[in-house]
């Protein structure tokens, strides 16, 4: 036990001390945040309001246009002098000129927008949406509907609520989809990235011939498990650091770039106009439904499938690493039987998110090779307890069986130099006592 601890320590420390670990741990959240920050910054920048000068010859729109927009201001001007549009804009310190010509037979005749360098799509959209609303209201008024009625029609909309019959709780399928997708994808990434890490570590020990030296001190199983556990700890450390870093960056960034403070505040951000239109009661509803999803269940399942999936596959990656002789291409070929079920699991997951109770999804969430990824997609929708229990039991059984078989392959493979082992031989190794 003491020796396996030494191995875990070495695997952990030698990896954490590497420059590449520091770089990926620091860089990935910074890059992500840089991306988000530049996007938010751009949004904040473009928030500099554009001034629209309106010449309304129809008299329909004057003083009725939307002034609540955070992106545009409206100034009504009269075109008495018939000056050149450029001079008009300069004189009124405006960016965009909207010229509405008189109506002909009660219908708008022509409406033109002018801007130096062309009108942006969003400006065009804003103006056309606003004008349409005003024009529709005018038509309704013309038909004799009074203003109060129009307002009440405009503000009415149907809001759907979905319920889980069994728990009699309100659910949110959008949130469930998101949680399922993110957690499933994370586990998929972890298995691939850190599983490959285990394989490379084993290959390094084999090609450096250090394995033989170590195996004269410890059992091969100890060496294999030490490596797998050590790398698991590296993975957990990296995750933890990412969480801390993203968390602190979220608070720190707005301090450095003041424009961001506003942009990051959802209710005022330009890009999040849609959000701000959602009444607060609904936002609260979404968060309520989050806690209704049994946060603790999701988290503990995530941790279980994260570790279970990693350990199951890491043992197989270690076995493959022990079979390879220095040849990278050979390694790639040999990993195909392992990467196939991982990719398959990913596809089942994407379909399970859409239909969490289909036969395929249920099978995928039970079968140990796919369950770590697929089950995470189903859990936020609520899965019967017996299914979770069966899936977990099967995963543990699968992990024990795979580790046992892999250790047998590993034990022989790590000392086989030169010759490429055929699958037939490998199967024979599994039967050695």
């Amino acid at each position: 036990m003491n020796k396996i601890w030494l191995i875990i320590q070495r695997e952990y420390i030698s990896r954490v001390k590497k420059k590449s670990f520091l770089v990926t741990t620091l860089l990935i959240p910074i890059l992500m945040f840089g991306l988000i920050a530049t996007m938010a910054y751009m949004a904040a920048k473009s928030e500099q309001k554009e001034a629209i000068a309106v010449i309304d010859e129809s008299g329909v729109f004057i003083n009725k246009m939307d002034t609540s927009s955070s992106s545009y201001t409206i100034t009504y001007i009269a075109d008495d002098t018939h000056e050149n549009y450029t001079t008009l804009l300069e004189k009124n310190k405006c960016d965009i000129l909207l010229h509405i010509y008189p109506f002909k037979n009660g219908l708008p005749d022509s409406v033109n927008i002018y801007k130096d360098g062309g009108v942006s799509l969003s400006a065009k959209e804003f103006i056309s949406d606003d004008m349409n609303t005003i024009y529709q209201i005018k038509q309704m008024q013309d038909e004799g509907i009074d203003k109060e009625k129009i307002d009440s029609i405009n503000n009415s909309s149907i809001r759907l609520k979905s319920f889980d019959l069994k728990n009699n709780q309100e659910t949110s399928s959008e949130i469930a989809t998101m949680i399922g997708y993110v957690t499933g994808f994370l586990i998929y990434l972890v298995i691939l990235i850190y599983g490959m890490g285990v394989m490379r570590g084993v290959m390094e020990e084999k090609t450096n011939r250090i394995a033989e030296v170590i195996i004269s001190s410890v059992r091969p199983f100890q060496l294999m498990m030490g490596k797998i556990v050590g790398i698991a700890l590296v993975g957990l450390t990296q995750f933890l650091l990412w969480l801390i870093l993203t968390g602190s960056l979220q608070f720190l960034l707005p301090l450095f770039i003041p424009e961001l403070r506003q942009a990051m505040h959802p209710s005022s951000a330009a890009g999040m106009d849609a959000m701000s239109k959602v009444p607060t009661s609904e936002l609260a509803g979404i968060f309520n439904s989050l806690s209704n999803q049994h946060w603790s269940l999701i988290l503990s399942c995530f941790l279980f499938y994260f570790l279970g999936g990693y350990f199951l596959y890491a043992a197989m990656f270690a076995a493959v690493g022990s079979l390879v002789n220095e040849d990278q291409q050979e390694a790639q070929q040999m990993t195909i039987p392992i990467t196939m079920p991982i990719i398959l699991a990913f596809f089942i997951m994407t379909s399970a998110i859409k239909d969490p109770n289909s036969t395929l999804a249920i099978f995928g969430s039970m079968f140990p090779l796919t369950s770590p990824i697929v089950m995470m997609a189903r859990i936020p929708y609520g899965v019967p307890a017996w299914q979770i229990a069966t899936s977990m039991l099967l995963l543990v059984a699968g992990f024990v069986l795979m580790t046992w078989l892999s250790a047998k392959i590993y034990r022989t493979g790590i000392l086989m130099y030169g010759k490429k082992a055929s699958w037939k031989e490998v199967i024979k190794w599994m039967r050695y006592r």
Partner: protein
Amino acid sequence: MLDVQHLKKQYATQKAVDDISLTVKKGSIFGLLGPNGAGKSSLLRIITGITLPDAGTIRLHGEPFDLIKHSPLIGYMPEERGLYKKMKVGEQALYLGQLKGLSKIDTLRNIKYWFDKLDMQSWKNKKVEDLSKGMSQKLQFVITILHNPALLILDEPFSGLDPVNSAVIKDEIYALAQKGTTIIFSTHRMEQVEEICREIALVNKGKLILHGSVAAIKEDFKQNMFQLEVDQAIQGYEKNIIAQEGHHYTLRFENNEEATNLLSYCLAQQLKIKTYSEILPSLNDIFIRLVEGDNGGVRQFDSN
């Protein structure tokens, strides 16, 4: 110290170790010989507990061998040398020493002792990949003996070493044996064996062909050959003379008595004897004879 009985190990098609039994006494330097592919490394891997035998027993100090219990007693340097290339020399020695069950303090103390002794202090913070081949061989040797093993098993310890480092390691092997360490080493180079070992075993095609002390083996395989250098020609021994160069003769006799008779003849004739000595076969000769007699088909030993 080490007692091995009826060891057998079979790989896919060939018998790597075929019913080998041998004993090694405490404090002896034991040479395991054989051509390439004879099964030396397989045998050593079984003795170190790296691979399990198909049949047979290994006893160490009279107890059945157990990897975890006996691993601290054994120092093993495999033929394929191996170290972590990216790890620093000092850290690597510390790690591998601790894996052998040594405490951190003891390991550090032993590292200091050996690194001082073999003039390696300046390497400590270098990475193994920055060392030359000879340097990493030396490091590998130090790591092997770091935990003061009672049984030191060296697979081809001199391959790839220059004469200077070879001599350094040879001296250390002697010194360790004097302190009571039992040393087993394998080689396919006979002159090293003759120089270093007191006891040997010859393995070919997985079988033990010969086992015993060097002197006894030479005695067994001697052909009663003598060389004589005198000041005049000798007469009456024509049938015994194999080669002659002036008054320098090489002779072969049926037995030792005839050889003694020649001496009395020389004295009776009042010949002046410059040298008269028995020619013992070199191990090289013995092995070539044995191995080629064994249905041939194996590679020759390197004679350099």
